[in-house]
């Protein structure tokens, strides 16, 4: 019982830090996935007097990923009220070409302006529709969302840092007595602090494993998966290898740092 109590306070602090880090990672991933989704659906329509080859488009701006030529058949069919085939063919020749440009990523408003300028440098391009109104609103929402998450993460870090500092003081008090007594019997510093370091390393490992279990549960939870499905994105909630070792590393660094601060702050009593 006693030993569980010894561990609990640090484990709780570590878990809350690890949890907020992982939540931040998942949100980041969701935003990236969502952006990718948007980029897939977002396109710029270009009207050109002359035919422009795909390769020519790609060399205009690195942002352009894929080009789709829009067939004029749709428009002609709509106008087609008893024209003969010969006239239609003639019309087809005189009609400008329509291209739909897909981009490599969801662009910023500035990137769109540059793209427009680059496209217009080609003299045969006469008109560009970039749906900038729509695009601007979506982009601003994403930026806002990211900002909110960042503020949230900063607040959580500050609160947990305070938690850790409070923990530090409790630990300092709790361990300094034992460290002093061991010192009176001639224990060198490394031996005096060995218990402390062992405790903090064990706590770091325990909290990483608990976080692993928590996120394993979350990533198979139907409600959570449903939420991601609703916005049509696929997100890795917990990458067993990368995320686990990242969190394990963070908690080891934090708890060893904590133990080191206690050892350095320890004063011998008379």
């Amino acid at each position, binding site marked *: 019982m006693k030993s569980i109590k010894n561990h609990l306070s640090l484990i709780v602090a570590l878990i809350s830090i690890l949890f907020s880090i992982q939540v931040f990672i998942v949100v980041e991933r969701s935003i990236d996935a969502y952006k990718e989704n948007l980029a897939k659906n977002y396109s710029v329509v270009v009207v050109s007097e002359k035919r422009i080859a795909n390769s020519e488009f790609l060399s205009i701006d690195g942002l352009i990923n894929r080009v789709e030529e829009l067939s004029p058949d749709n428009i002609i069919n709509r106008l087609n009220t008893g024209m003969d085939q010969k006239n239609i063919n003639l019309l087809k020749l005189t009609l400008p070409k329509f291209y739909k440009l897909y981009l490599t990523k969801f662009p910023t408003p500035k990137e769109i302006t540059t793209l427009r300028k680059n496209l217009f440098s080609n003299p045969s391009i006469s008109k560009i529709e970039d749906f900038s109104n729509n695009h601007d609103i979506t982009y601003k929402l994403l930026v806002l969302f990211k900002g909110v998450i960042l503020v949230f993460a900063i607040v959580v870090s500050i609160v947990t840092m305070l938690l850790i500092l409070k923990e530090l003081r409790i630990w300092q008090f709790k361990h300094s007595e*034992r460290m002093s007594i061991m*010192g*009176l*019997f*001639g*224990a060198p510093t490394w031996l005096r602090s060995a218990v402390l370091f062992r405790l903090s390393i064990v706590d770091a490992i325990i909290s990483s494993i608990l976080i692993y279990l928590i996120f394993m549960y979350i990533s198979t939870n139907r409600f959570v998966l449903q939420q991601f499905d609703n916005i049509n994105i696929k997100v890795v909630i917990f990458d067993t290898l990368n995320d686990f070792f990242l969190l394990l590393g963070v908690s080891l660094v934090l708890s060893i740092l904590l133990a080191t601060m206690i050892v350095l702050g320890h004063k*011998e009593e008379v």
Partner: protein
Amino acid sequence: MDKVILAKDVSLSYDSNQTIIKQATFSIESGSFVFVTGASGSGKSTLLKSLYGAIKPKQGSLIVGGVELNNVSKSKLNFLRRHLGIVFQDYKLIKEWTIEKNITMPLLINGYEKEVTLNQAESLLKHVRLKHQAGKYPMELSGGEQQRVAMARALSHNPILILADEPTGNLDEYSSQLIWNLLEGANTQLKTTVIVVTHHIPSTLNVDYKHYHIEYGEISEIN
């Protein structure tokens, strides 16, 4: 005979305005049994503190176990302390450790095998009549029982010098006798030097002893 302690003009104080021990000069031979008496607040515990290097002499020179304590390095002091057996007036047991682990802490620090420490813990618990309390934590013991644990800890690693600060202060006659027997045994059988601070010198002791008395900061030998 070898001197375990050599003190020359040693003055001790916590701050500059009040000197607790004034220019004490004395020497203690290896294997002797020494009592230190004096009124409460006279400086008995302070004297012991200087002997295990917790406070440095303000003046004079102090050598314990061949280690000059005036300007001792951390590692040298640790080396000396590993060969001392100290019973503190306030016991100084480690709360979060069982009494067995407390008793064998000096062995742990001296790097003994786990098996040795376990055997030693068992036999020492028997010696201080606490076998029935095995596995408990210090807070679960009475004051007198804690004091006996502290005594057992001081004996666990066969120290060259035992410094005991009122080791029977909280004990009834029976338990006090137990402690005196243990100290006497260590002194006669293992040739351990023993320095005991006490208010009451037992009449049943079978060893020759020296008696120092502290009064007004002066240490004098009583014959």
